[in-house]
């Protein structure tokens, strides 16, 4: 509420102070972007677009091609999404629509607890618990499946499948919590309308999902953005081999993992610039995905409010 009296000095200070922090944060992001750009110039000038089209990563001879990393990042994140989205949506639907009231709080608590577990702990759990299980699974694959490119290769345990499973577990709490909020934002009038028209429980839920579709897409994309940047858990179970392979069993490499592994030892300027270039692209991709996902989530909010206003203003419809 804007006061017509002159603002007190401490209010001005408050406004300016908080404004400074806000601007500081934005300029920090801009500064990071600028530094990443500046420190990757050597590599950009030397390799140009070829950097993203070649596969050889050889620090000894100075040949750097980052295509396997972007492949590994995108492939692992997409796989993680495929596994996590149904699970997260299921959790969100169950908590918001189906579960008894006394169960909601503990379920929410445990789901969010997954988000609090440090990444390295996921990595250690992955390498000591998940990888042996995945290896047994890989060894037990029937021969008919083994001939497919998706399941080819020696059964190592570490590889794309383990990384995708660990990533999906890490992504579930983010997607499910946003999906839950988004489902809760579906107006009660919509649900009551559906039931009034004779919808079953499941049909009403489907209606709610359809209504909240932009928000759910946003939630899924947020999970995608999370999966793209995940480092420690992935590097411990993915096998860290820069190769492009469709096979779930093949060890591969992601952008975040190569940065974590090789950055502190990279003394040669070209090597360092190549790594920073990878970091810059990862930064840009994650930023873009997060912006798009936020836009989707906000657009649901904007879509809901005008409709609620219209519904309140419109007269009740007489049944024919």
């Amino acid at each position: 509420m804007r006061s017509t009296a002159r603002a007190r000095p401490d209010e001005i200070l408050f406004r300016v102070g908080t404004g400074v922090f806000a601007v500081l944060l934005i300029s920090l992001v801009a500064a990071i972007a600028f530094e990443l750009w500046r420190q990757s110039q050597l590599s950009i000038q030397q390799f140009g677009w070829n950097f993203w089209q070649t596969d050889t990563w050889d620090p000894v001879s100075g040949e750097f091609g980052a295509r396997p990393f972007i492949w590994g990042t995108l492939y692992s994140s997409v796989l993680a999404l495929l596994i996590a989205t149904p699970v997260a949506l299921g959790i969100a639907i169950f908590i918001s629509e189906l579960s008894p009231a006394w169960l909601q709080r503990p379920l929410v608590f445990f789901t969010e607890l997954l988000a609090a577990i440090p990444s390295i702990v996921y990595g250690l759990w992955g390498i000591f618990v998940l990888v042996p299980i995945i290896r047994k699974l890989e060894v037990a694959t029937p021969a008919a499946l083994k001939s497919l490119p998706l399941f080819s290769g020696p059964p190592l345990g570490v590889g794309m499948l383990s990384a995708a499973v660990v990533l999906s577990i890490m992504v579930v709490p983010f997607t499910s919590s946003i999906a839950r909020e988004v489902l809760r934002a579906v107006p009660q009038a919509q649900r009551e309308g559906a039931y009034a028209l004779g919808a079953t429980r499941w049909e009403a839920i489907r209606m709610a999902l359809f209504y909240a579709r932009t928000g759910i897409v946003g939630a899924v994309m947020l999970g995608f953005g999370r999966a793209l940047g995940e480092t420690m858990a992935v590097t411990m179970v993915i096998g860290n081999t820069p190769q492009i392979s469709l096979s779930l069993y093949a060890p591969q490499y992601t952008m975040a993992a190569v940065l974590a592994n090789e950055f502190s030892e990279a003394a040669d300027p070209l090597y360092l610039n190549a790594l920073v270039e990878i970091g810059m692209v990862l930064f840009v991709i994650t930023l873009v995905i997060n912006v798009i996902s936020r836009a989707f989530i906000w657009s649901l909010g904007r879509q809901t409010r005008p409709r609620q206003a219209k519904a309140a203003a419109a007269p009740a419809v007489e049944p024919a």
Partner: protein
Amino acid sequence: MKQLFTVAAAVALAGAGLTGAVQINGAGATFPAPIYTKWFSEYNKLHPEIQINYQPIGSGGGINQITHKTVFFGASDGPMTADQMNAAPGKILHFPTVLGGVVPIYNIPGYSGELQFTGPVLADIYLGKITKWNDPAIAKLNSGVNLPGTDITVVHRAEGSGTTYIWCDFLSKVSPEYKKRVGVATSVNWPVGVAGKGSDGVAALVSQTPGAVGYNELIYAIQNKIKYGSVQNQAGKFLQASLDTVTAAAAAAAKSMPPDFRVSITNAPGDDAYPISSFTWLLLYQNPSDKAQSKTMADFVKWALTDGQKYCKDLGYAPLPQNVVDMELKALATIKTQ
């Protein structure tokens, strides 16, 4: 950023100077970190006003940091190359401190005994030319062992590591193809294999993957009771790495030690020399600007090379041979301390 650090360091040093304490920062190899930590704490007991901090960030990181002068001393498992030394703003001296070895570890289903390897066989395994455990090349070295037909899963380090440097240094010496295709560095383009993060990552992968082969530092293998194989040395004997065989490798190389100590002792001559051994070096500027820190560090290194060596065996490091220590003390005297 560097200026901020310099200001902060200056304030810290000024604060330290007020109390008479000397604080020195160093960074580098992870391999000698346990013995360095022990040394720094023992030295601090003898000289309570001297505190030396060490960050084990890796050999490459250590070289990087001392070149940029963000730390006073560096530590590396691999000597600096000529290019790296030229890039430094002053002359950097290398001082070998302890010895270590790298051992081949493996996991063969159905066999829990010792395996014998030669350098060329290990190189071929890591080049992807030998792919099964019952390959004739391996069977020939291990007659009487029933090797299964399991595929060999090669495991190596994911991140840059001095252990990788020593391993590749040895394989490049015994296999010209390995030298051409892979080369020697802390981080290389591995032809085959999966990567584990850290020594523990490699050990975990090998212990859980039937048919895997990998490499670890000797001390790591001893402390974690990991089974390792023996390797044939230049004299033709198959030796398991141990404190004695690693020291023998250094003693043999010590006879032809260059004055700057930048020598590789892999594949050393001598009957008892373990072929995959290496020094690890402390890196110091010959003429640093801070003379007080220089004097402190020079005194510390002298102590570490003489009295400090007695702490090595307990931690599993091989102490330096005496003739190397004598040469180093002479080189230490050339550091400008005032």
